[in-house]
């Protein structure tokens, strides 16, 4: 579809135990650009190729996890229409005033059935990607670390998978791209508001509001291998990879920020159009669906989360 509703993941606000350590991780190692600090002490960052002011907000707190994930919608008219649709669906809505996050307009906050806070907003100030809009260069100079291109998606865990999938597909217009099923039971759902393999993904697991990972796009497999080098050079807590997922085909590596929130950097995943078939992985091939080469499930990757 031409994107007329929800456009993309706009930002994720993460709780970290030590702000300085977290900023070093996200700015110097992932290579996000620090663009702002607010009066509450929160730090705002963005991937180099993102145009808006920020896509990651770090908030120091006494526990790790995701505060909320926000999506940008086309315009204000869309925001108020979706707010009404969310209310009709039965969501409790909270309006967050413009400026609660600096450089961001009013946000519509709701809790998904899996227990996660999500938000929609229509406006964020323009920052630019460091490249001219006339006769643009292919990339800006002076990038650091893994040179993350953009905040790409989050994968989250919760019990009421059906509820969140229904909300995102029926109310917010997301499309199911891939899934894992065990017979009739859906275990995982990958959803997009655009043409990406996923903009958000849900996995069924007991509990509510858990973050599995926040993911950042790289350009090439070579960049993923270079990220692996940086992970070792900087003694970053490794999870697994470099490897390939069956789901989404992404070439990937996983690691943890200094507070234990999992990050992914990846490249080269698949894409969809509105007429693309849903891709299904069966539970007997779960290992291959997740790690295409080893075909073995990994307890840490599957079981470790942050948040409630």
């Amino acid at each position, binding site marked *: 579809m031409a994107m007329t509703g929800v456009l993309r993941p706009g930002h994720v606000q993460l709780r970290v135990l*030590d702000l300085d350590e977290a900023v070093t991780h996200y700015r110097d190692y992932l290579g996000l650009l620090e663009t702002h600090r607010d009066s509450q002490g929160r730090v705002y960052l963005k991937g180099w190729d993102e145009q808006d002011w920020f896509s990651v907000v770090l908030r120091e707190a006494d*526990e790790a996890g995701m505060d909320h994930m926000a999506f940008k919608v086309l315009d204000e008219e869309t925001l108020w229409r979706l707010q009404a649709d969310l209310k009709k669906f039965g969501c409790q809505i909270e309006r967050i005033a413009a400026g609660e996050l600096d450089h961001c307009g009013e946000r519509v906050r709701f809790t998904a059935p899996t227990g996660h806070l999500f938000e929609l907003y229509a406006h964020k100030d323009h920052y630019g990607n460091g490249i001219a809009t006339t006769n643009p260069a292919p990339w800006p100079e002076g990038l650091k670390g893994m040179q993350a291109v953009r905040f790409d998606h989050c994968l989250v865990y919760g019990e009421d998978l059906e509820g969140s999938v229904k909300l995102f597909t029926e109310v917010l217009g997301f499309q199911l791209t891939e899934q894992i099923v065990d017979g009739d039971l859906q275990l995982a759902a990958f959803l997009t508001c655009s043409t990406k393999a996923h903009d958000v993904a849900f996995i*069924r697991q007991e509990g509510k509001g858990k973050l599995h990972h926040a993911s950042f796009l790289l350009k090439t497999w070579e960049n993923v291998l270079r990220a692996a080098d940086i992970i070792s050079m900087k003694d970053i807590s490794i999870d697994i990879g470099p490897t390939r997922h069956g789901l989404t085909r992404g070439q990937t590596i996983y690691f943890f920020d200094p*507070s234990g929130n999992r990050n992914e950097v990846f490249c080269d995943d698949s894409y969809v159009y509105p007429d693309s078939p849903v891709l299904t992985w069966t539970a007997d091939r779960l290992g291959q669906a997740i790690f295409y080469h080893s075909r073995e499930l990994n307890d840490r990757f599957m079981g470790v989360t942050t948040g409630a």
Partner: protein
Amino acid sequence: MSGQYKVTLLDSGESYSCGAESTVLKGMEQLGRKGIAVGCRGGGCGICKIEIVRGDYGCQRMSRAHISEEDEARGVVLACRTRPRSDLEVRVLGKLQRAVMRGLG
């Protein structure tokens, strides 16, 4: 500063040597030893929860979702955020969950 301390896991009786600059978890991992489950290594996920039964130690900040103030006061801590200041005897409390998606064993 380069003191080495003995960490004994009371559950198995196994022990390993851990530097004062290392965490109880990292000391174990660096020697290729097992016994404490390894999660995020950042104090956030709670998988490496242990109880210090005997010994002195220092801790960095740990997620309150997993270690309450009462826990911390009675020596229940995360191995990834705990550095030994003497020989330690510890009991392993945390573990990785095996069944991860409902419907799968």
